[in-house]
């Protein structure tokens, strides 16, 4: 489904601020793969997502999604088939527009044929209400309210729905529960698991929670200094402990993982 070949990116080349963000990253995801990504700050996790989503043009390498080379495609065209969520719940929704209007915008990805002058139809509303009801947050009764009135967790759940309203070929989750309180984070994570498995969405999820990294999805990737240093799946992953994962990381990266948040979350 997703094929990255030797993707490299250096920011501010030739200056004192030069930063090699991605070094020859190659990655292959099968359709329906759900991979979690862990790594210390600055390891290149978000940069990898930015490269896939098209926020910048990589210096080297190619990105192929579902057989189509998207390396040179602008970000807004890629988002037709790539759904994305950020850590900040404010990033995914338009606060001054209603829930229904936000969903209508997300739904635009599906409706290339409809006229730009068409309005939200009854059928659209019914679909939105049905999908909102699946979140179990009662948002289906508040469709005419501005999104700015919702809590962070509700907004993030809505963003998840918007990113998957039209089933994407690839879903990128960038620590999308990190800014939520633990109970809400669990709820949003459960919704994520449910939606991703029901629709067989190919998914990449950045997390700092080592437990989630091993239990969610079917593959675990670890990144360090712009490289993917570890990629475990299948049997090996099923029997792996958090300590085992950290050991393997230290072996491959040549140093121990130094992310406080990850190490703290280990003790939960």
């Amino acid at each position, binding site marked *: 489904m997703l094929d990255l070949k030797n993707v490299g990116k250096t920011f501010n080349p030739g200056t004192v601020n030069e930063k090699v963000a991605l070094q020859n990253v190659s990655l292959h995801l099968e359709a329906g793969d759900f991979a979690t990504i862990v790594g210390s700050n600055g390891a290149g996790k978000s940069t990898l997502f930015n490269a896939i989503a098209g926020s910048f043009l990589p210096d080297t390498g190619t990105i192929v999604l579902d057989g189509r080379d998207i390396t040179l495609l602008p970000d807004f065209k890629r988002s037709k088939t790539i759904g994305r969520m950020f850590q900040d719940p404010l990033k995914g929704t338009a606060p001054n527009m209603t829930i229904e209007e936000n969903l209508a915008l997300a739904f*635009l990805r599906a409706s290339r044929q409809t006229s730009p002058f068409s309005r939200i139809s009854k059928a659209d509303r019914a679909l939105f209400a049905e999908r909102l009801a699946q979140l179990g947050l009662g948002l289906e009764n508040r469709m005419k309210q501005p999104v700015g009135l919702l809590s962070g967790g509700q907004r993030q759940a809505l963003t998840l729905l918007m990113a998957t309203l039209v089933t994407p070929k690839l879903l990128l989750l960038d620590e999308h529960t990190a800014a939520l309180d633990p109970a809400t984070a669990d709820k949003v994570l459960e919704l994520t698991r449910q939606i991703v498995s029901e629709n067989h969405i190919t998914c990449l999820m950045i997390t700092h929670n080592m437990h989630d990294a091993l239990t969610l999805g079917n593959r675990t990737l670890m990144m360090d200094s712009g490289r993917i240093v570890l990629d475990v799946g299948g049997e090996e992953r099923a029997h792996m402990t958090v300590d085992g994962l950290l050991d393997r990381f230290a072996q491959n990266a040549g140093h121990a993982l130094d992310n406080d948040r990850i190490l703290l979350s280990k003790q939960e």
Partner: protein
Amino acid sequence: MLTTAVVFNALELGFIYALVAMALFLSFRVLNVADMTTDGAFVLGCAMSATAAVAGHPILGLPMAMLAGAAAGFITAALQTRFGVPSILAGIITNTGLYTVNLAVMGFSSNVPMLKTTTIFTMLRDVMGEKAPYKLVLCAGVTTVVCALLILFLGTRLGLSIRATGDNPDMVRASSINTAFTITVGLCVSNSMTALSGAVLAQYQKSADINLGTGMVVIGLASLIIGESLFGRGGLWRKAVAAVIGSVIYRFIIAIALRANVPSECLKLISACIVALAIAAPTIKANYDFKRRRASAMKGGKGHA
């Protein structure tokens, strides 16, 4: 103090300039772009309309003005979305260039008199009769139609995309919408409304002048802010209608000021002060609250600071 003639005059002008207020509602509020093309686009509308009317096509002058205004908006939008010119500078550049274009449209003369020319107003007068309030009917009619169309437009998929572009550009790109395109459409529509305002005004006052647009962006913003602060809470249609009401109120304020013998030369300064104060108000209030808290904390004598 206010005679019927003065009231009618203020209403008529209020409705005409309401088109500018709605244009700024679209660019400044909805799209979150400070569009400095406004002054030039207004005069461009005046010039197109006056030139067309003098040539015997007063009605055609309105759509021509709107097209020209949209073209001006397109240039500003292209400068900022395709060529990376900061948005305010893009508007100023277009505005500067428009000065020459506007002179050219008026045949390189700084004004076009239309004293004996047939205008949309004289045409309606011939239909409704001398005594009827034909001017008000026309001004209010044009503004009402445009306002209704604007509200309808903002509810369409394209309109939603434009609103979201001003509200959260990140989310718009993630919804497969090209922000360069939505900004372009938004600025074309808003400048065509500004130009329409100029077009109606030129035929209303039977002349076009190269300096008519000076300060138009500030006057439009003043109207917009007055309307918002009095009626602007609530849905989208309410905000658009508030821009119209704000414009009418602004014209009444001007009419009263003129009646109270405020020299007309001072009006622009007054408008500038209204806008500066209204936009600065939240910051002034925050500073004031902070100073008061600090003062009361100092009085407490514990000296936390």
